[in-house]
């Protein structure tokens, strides 16, 4: 399949936008660069989350687990391995871990998967803490020459990779199978689709992407310990941003990430002690008022020319 003309134009725009995003370290202050890192981080996490959870409707709460594993991969290997190979190793570990979780749970109904992912970050954290106690180690120092700008560029590059993966999947047989699964799993199974295998393959994408994000960001922490690397808040933030943007289109999570990052900045600077509460309330508002996110709103507006907002289907 070769891209059509409108597709080619769209690809051109995406490349231009990415190039424009990549100039941020030269034009923005360090404050904006830090914001840029946050936005790029959550764009990778939320977009890869939506690639899996959008079509399958399985809600993954495991982002923090894979992210933490990636952070630790860098921490443990940085002294002995070349940096670039660490990112690849983190991606492989994330994908393999996701495959294991998927093989155990995705053959069954979505509830088992949600429960399994709910405590996964905490479970991995407990095991790591236990291993650290056995070896007498407390935390790990990650001392590198990597600058904030380089971290930012890596994350933008990773975001481009995630989009590319999502776009290719959408055009592939797997993407076609997933659309059928999303509409009606029973139908998909009867037409000979191995639904469990399709879901396991797809879940490896957010697993790998979150692990690589953690690996890229590890030098920023300087000192890694389990409580920092496995923050449960991270999984929650990713779900909120992806749902705010909407999972129906590849660009959806991005339009959730950008406003939410600014909102989050405002919340955490004005109400530093109430972040958990306000985050929870924001999330409830989104679930009740914008169940399909900005993407749903956009599609409704386009379809009805600004008419009714309510439309069936998720």
């Amino acid at each position, binding site marked *: 399949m070769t891209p059509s003309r409108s597709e080619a134009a769209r690809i051109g725009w995406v490349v231009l936008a990415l190039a424009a995003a990549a100039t941020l370290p030269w034009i923005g202050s360090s404050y904006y660069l830090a914001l840029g890192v946050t936005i790029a981080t959550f764009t990778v996490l939320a977009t890869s989350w939506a690639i899996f959870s959008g079509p399958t*409707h399985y*809600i993954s*709460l495991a982002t923090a687990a894979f992210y933490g594993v990636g952070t630790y991969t860098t921490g443990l290997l940085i002294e002995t391995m070349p940096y670039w190979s660490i990112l690849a190793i983190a991606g492989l570990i994330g994908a393999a871990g996701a495959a294991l979780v998927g093989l*155990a*749970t995705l053959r*069954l109904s*979505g*509830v*088992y998967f*949600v*429960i*399994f992912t*709910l*405590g996964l970050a*905490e*479970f991995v954290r*407990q*095991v790591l*803490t*236990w291993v650290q*106690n056995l070896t007498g180690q407390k935390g790990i120092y990650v001392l590198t020459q990597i600058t904030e700008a380089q971290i930012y560029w890596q994350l933008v590059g990773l975001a481009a990779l995630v989009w590319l993966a999502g776009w290719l999947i959408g055009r592939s047989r797997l993407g076609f199978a997933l659309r059928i699964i999303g509409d009606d799993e029973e139908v998909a199974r009867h037409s000979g689709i191995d639904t469990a295998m399709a879901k396991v393959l797809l879940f490896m994408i957010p697993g790998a992407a979150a692990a690589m994000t953690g690996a890229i960001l590890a030098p920023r922490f300087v000192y890694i310990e389990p409580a920092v690397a496995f923050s*449960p808040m991270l999984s*929650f933030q990713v*779900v909120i941003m992806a*749902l705010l943007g909407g999972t129906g289109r590849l660009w959806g999570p991005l339009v959730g990430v950008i406003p939410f990052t600014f909102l989050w900045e405002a919340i955490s600077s004005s109400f530093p*002690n*109430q*972040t*958990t*509460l*306000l*985050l*929870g*309330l924001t*999330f*409830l508002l989104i*679930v*009740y008022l914008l*169940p399909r996110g900005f993407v749903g709103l956009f599609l409704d507006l386009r379809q009805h020319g600004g008419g009714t907002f309510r439309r*069936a289907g*998720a």
Partner: protein
Amino acid sequence: MTDGGGMDIIITGLVLGGTYALIAMGLNLQYGMARIMNLANGEVLVVGAFVAFWLYTAGQVSPLLTLFVVAPLAFALNWLIYRFMLLPLVRRAKSQGQLEVDSILVTFGLSFVGVGLMLAFFGGDYFSYSYLARPVRIMGETYGLNRIVAFLGAVVIGGLLYLWLERTRPGRAMRAIAVDPKSARLVGIDVPRMSALAFALGGTITAMGGALLSTYLTLDASTGVLFTLKALVIVIMGGVGDLRGTIVAALLLGLLETFVAAWIDPGLTLAAAYLLFVLILLFRPQGLFGRKA
């Protein structure tokens, strides 16, 4: 607590499992009967524990008396949550799958609201108090009296719930909506009202379990999710809607967790839950006593 021997671990494990059984029965009422997957269940537990802690440290009120305060409060709170936050989802859902996704999202959000509120009111510190911290000898080994009392409290509450479900008309109606909500409507059961009741009752049971647990466990505002996870694993393992299975699964988890804590590391509380969960997923996804669908 334990010196790594045999009998004391078994009794400590069964005592812990007994309290887990009560909490998981609460969750099973919510998930099995009211069909709401409640990821905020653990926060309700911690609220129950907080009230017990607060009344004990402020007014020396016995946690056993506190149960009578916690129960109506938790019932009202959970009924309101069902009526105003979950019933709209039940009404707008076109399928069981959609309701599942929506209720998971909403209760996940609620769990963060719950943690946030507790952080705002009580702060992030661990809390514990010393109630009945006297040794009691059973079969040559010593145990904390508070653990034994909490266990007996769980047995009494769980037993009453079981009798109510098995022997009374509303109890039977509740079991009917667990089996088949559509047919339950046909025989004249008010399903939305029964579901609200099941949800509220489930939250009440869990909150009372929290008050009992607080007599011997140290908790903080964000520990709720651990109990949610354990209760979910117990419910899946015992079979959704099956109280007998819930009790057996809870005792197994209590035993395994105590073994892990005594022989490997007390910090690995979730390892036992995940081990059981993986075994169940691989070999008996329909639950211990469930039949294959």
